[in-house]
């Protein structure tokens, strides 16, 4: 029973981490994706490459550099502890920072594609009707790119759920604080507790599959209706 409680805590922590990360990524990613979709600056391709890095980089590499950045000797680590009194390494906040970077391309890229297909001429029309920037964003851009937003949110969420390498490097394995599902699964396998491992692995597999079916089903349905 004790073990079961720790699994539920890991699940709950993972869901929280995914929700917080996805929310932050949508807020930060939308303007970034908008800029990438519209910018003609040469600098944009550098930014685009940076955003895409987590796609190909081993998560342990990201984790390693984050761990160094989080150390009290560094700007990020010292700045954070000066602001909050806590360290970033081995805390939930640290996991959020790591996940935001790790899942960034999964949110920014669908949004960028959505914004590229958005008909910018509509914004001019709205402008002549007196609509300001926020008004146009809320009432034209979001409803007309809602598929991109749904894709970005689902992919960002699902990808954060399955995070392992980064968490291992910066989060450690503190139950209730930094122990996420994938780490708990690893522990069970290490302890040769295959039955528990099956529960977690199977659960994650089913969940990820269900999310993707939801996503592609939704996109296909929308595309057919067009």
């Amino acid at each position, binding site marked *: 029973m004790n073990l079961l409680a720790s699994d539920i805590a890991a699940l709950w922590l993972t869901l929280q981490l995914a929700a917080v990360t996805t929310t932050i990524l949508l807020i930060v990613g939308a303007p970034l994706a908008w800029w990438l979709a519209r910018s003609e600056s040469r600098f944009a391709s550098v930014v685009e490459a940076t955003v895409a890095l987590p796609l190909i980089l081993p998560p342990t590499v990201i984790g390693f550099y984050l761990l160094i950045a989080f150390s009290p000797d560094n700007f990020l680590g010292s700045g954070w502890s000066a602001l909050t009194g806590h360290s970033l390494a081995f805390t939930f906040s640290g996991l959020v920072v790591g996940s935001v970077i790790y899942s960034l391309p999964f949110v920014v890229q669908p949004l960028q594609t959505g914004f590229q297909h958005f008909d*910018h*001429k*509509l914004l*001019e*029309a*709205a*402008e*002549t*009707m*007196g*609509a*300001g920037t926020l*008004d146009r964003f809320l*009432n*034209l851009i979001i*409803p*007309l790119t809602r598929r991109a937003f749904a894709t970005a949110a689902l992919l960002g969420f699902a990808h954060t759920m399955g995070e392992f390498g980064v968490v291992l490097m910066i989060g450690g394995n503190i139950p209730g604080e930094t122990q996420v599902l994938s780490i708990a699964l690893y522990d069970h396998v290490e302890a040769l507790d295959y039955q528990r491992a099956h529960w977690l692995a199977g659960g994650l597999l089913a969940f990820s599959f269900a999310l993707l079916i939801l996503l592609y089903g939704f996109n296909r349905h929308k595309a057919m209706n067009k």
Partner: protein
Amino acid sequence: MGVAVMNGTLEKSIQLAIKHSLGEVTSGGEAKSSANFSLSLKAQLPGKGITAIYGPSGCGKTTLLRCIAGLEEVEHCQLNMSGDEIGSLPAKQRQLGYVFQENRLFPHLSVEGNLDFAYKRRFSDNGPSKQQVIDWLDIDALLERKPDQLSGGQKQRVAIARALLTAPRCLLLDEPLAGVDSQARNPILRHLETVAENLNIPMVYVSHNLDEITRLADHLIIMDQGRLVADGPLLDMLSRLDLDVTRQESAAVVLNTQIMGHDDRYSLTQLSLGLQSGDDAQLSVGRLSGEPGNAVRVRIPCRDVSIALERPSLSSILNILPGVITEIELIDGARAMIKTEVARQFILARITRKSMEHLQLETGKQVYLQIKTVALLS
């Protein structure tokens, strides 16, 4: 044409002075091919009625309209709307309605949703009501539909309605009929006439189609290569022999007439060219429904007017008007344009140079104009 000189009419007119250079910048999504296109223009437009901006494609008329709306980043823009300087305001604060060539309806909203989008953000409460606009443009039956379920003509009617619902101080229209098939054009022109009759705001109508312009406009601005060529009241402009508009194959003049009476026996209506004009200055057209005294605008193509020195007594042509030649211009080696005054209005006749010399036509000479076709414009 200094702005200060025009102070007397400042109250009810639109004055603009715009300087704008386009490098390889894109305008409205379409790349300008010429790298050094520049627009430099000063003009005064009447504060009521429809002003047409006419010129060949690429002359900058759409860019001019976008500058007026505040959609282009310009070097210099002075825009005085009935005494208010709005040239430095962003587009969203200029309170001008804009009808784009490609309608630009919001695809996620129904027709009614599109109208509400504009109405919720209207610039003042003095504008027309939703129902009025829906009636003027006859879009009652379309309200539930989505833009992709509309024909080109229907879309443009909705776009015009949407622009009007913001209660703009002026309505700007950029070739609203360009993407509309030919059968749908006439109804839209009729709807625009209804709007112009009912709504007391000036409209600026960009077009390269003289037929649309002669039908709708009161005032005409002619542009070429980013510059103003000429401007003035439409009727004067259409009879100016120094302008390109009278050089075209389809050149035509427009006359303001009044219904004098009806001839029920032959199903005809008599139109008079002027109040003081005698029986001579009358045109007969197919029976109209209007009352005597009603104003009717007619259009007379230059190619359908011929000239005789004496009143032809035996002719099937009904409309023969006496006139005095005021100007003669050779078009090419073969043809000449003869401008004649009839009851203080002008009619152009395009005839051969051979006939001109044969009849010894010269300014001041009294002639008779035989008019084969008279097209009704309103």
